[in-house]
């Protein structure tokens, strides 16, 4: 149990190195770089002309559909991994069960393709 916590403490430390490095480098740059903001410099970049409206404009809904499809397949992946490790032990029963599960999802993907959900025009 102790080694279990030690493992994940190490993971946490290494992850925080990324943030520590970011803080270090930005504070080093803060000492070295010039700081001379003007109003023109701080406007939003829009190819040189004055920006029109807000940057948070409306976008296509299709990204939302892709997001939904992604969630479905990602959850599937979570189920597949434990099965993949124990496949030998589960034998034919586990194999057929999982093949049915994947097959149903595959039909879903084919349905989405046939319905032109993935079409990009």
């Amino acid at each position, binding site marked *: 149990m102790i080694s279990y916590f030690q493992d994940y403490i190490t993971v946490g430390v290494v*992850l925080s190195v990324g943030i520590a490095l970011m803080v270090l480098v930005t504070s080093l740059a803060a000492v070295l770089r010039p700081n001379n903001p003007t109003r023109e410099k701080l406007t939003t970049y829009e190819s040189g002309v004055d920006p029109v409206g807000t940057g948070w404009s409306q976008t296509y809904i299709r990204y939302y559909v892709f997001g939904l499809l992604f969630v479905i397949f990602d959850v599937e992946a979570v189920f597949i991994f434990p099965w993949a490790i124990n496949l030998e032990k589960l034998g034919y029963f586990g194999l057929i069960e999982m093949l049915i599960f994947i097959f149903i999802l595959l039909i879903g993907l084919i349905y989405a393709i046939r319905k032109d959900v993935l079409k990009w025009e």
Partner: protein
Amino acid sequence: MSFGTEILVKVGVVLAFALNGAVICTLMDVKASAWMQRRPGPLHVGLRGFIFPLAEVIKFIQKEDIVPTKVDKTIFKLAPAFILFSVFGLFVVVPISPTLVVVDLNLGVFYLLAISTLSTLGVLIAGWSSANKYSLMGGLRAAGQLIAYELPLILAVVGVVIQAETMSMVGIVEKQIEWGLPFAIAGQGIAFVIFMIAATAEMMRIPFDMPIGESELVMGFMTEYSGIRFLIFYIAEYINMFVMCAIAATIFLGGYHVPLLPVEWVNFYGPVVLLTKTLGLAFILVLVRWSFPRFREDQLQNIAWKILIPLSLLNIFVTSIMKVVF
């Protein structure tokens, strides 16, 4: 060795590998481009162009860090850190030799795939918080692309997990030593190709650089970033390239071991072997980058959803049937 010093050593190893790997990959990229397109900068200037990455870093450090008035300041400043955070997380489970691994989690592969998804979030918040139309479009394209290619990446690895019966990275390499063949040859060739294509898309390198696409979106989700924060995106991209190649080498190409070399000496030649394989894969990515044009957005999504995902599901089908029947 006490737990504290052990952590320090491990952090040192990760930092050394990550930063040096990034520098080597950068150098390889610019050198190859200079060679193929006759660019004098990285080829002749200053010690035959070898101090190019150093000059790049110094240039970015002394540039002004502009934060436009309209951006969402906290998130805007946080986004590069988020990406760096997830990239460093990937190094945790990559075994450089059987003993030289930060932590050999028994969930290794699973952890890897989970952490690599975090950078999607970093890209998305960078695009959204910039309050810029180019950035927003770049960010959304990036999110669409990264989630689409995340799936083939995950599903390609499942085949290996079925064959190895473990998710620990060291376990996967040990299994390949036991079989005497890397998984890319022993049954997972298609998975390896799918993994490499998906990994290239995850890195957002040409031909999958739709989110950046400088000829249409200026610099995509990085448009508003300048100076040191831009440099961090840039470095993170190359660290990511290095570590993804290392992961592919570990999972599919036998990691720190090559057949015929004695297993007892693996601690000595292990790091060299892994580095060779990693840089070999990285060099293929570099060649691809400077040879191919960019995909169109709809082609990009079609490749993921209509070819790679069904193909990787098929790979799981075949691998699991082979495993149970034989």
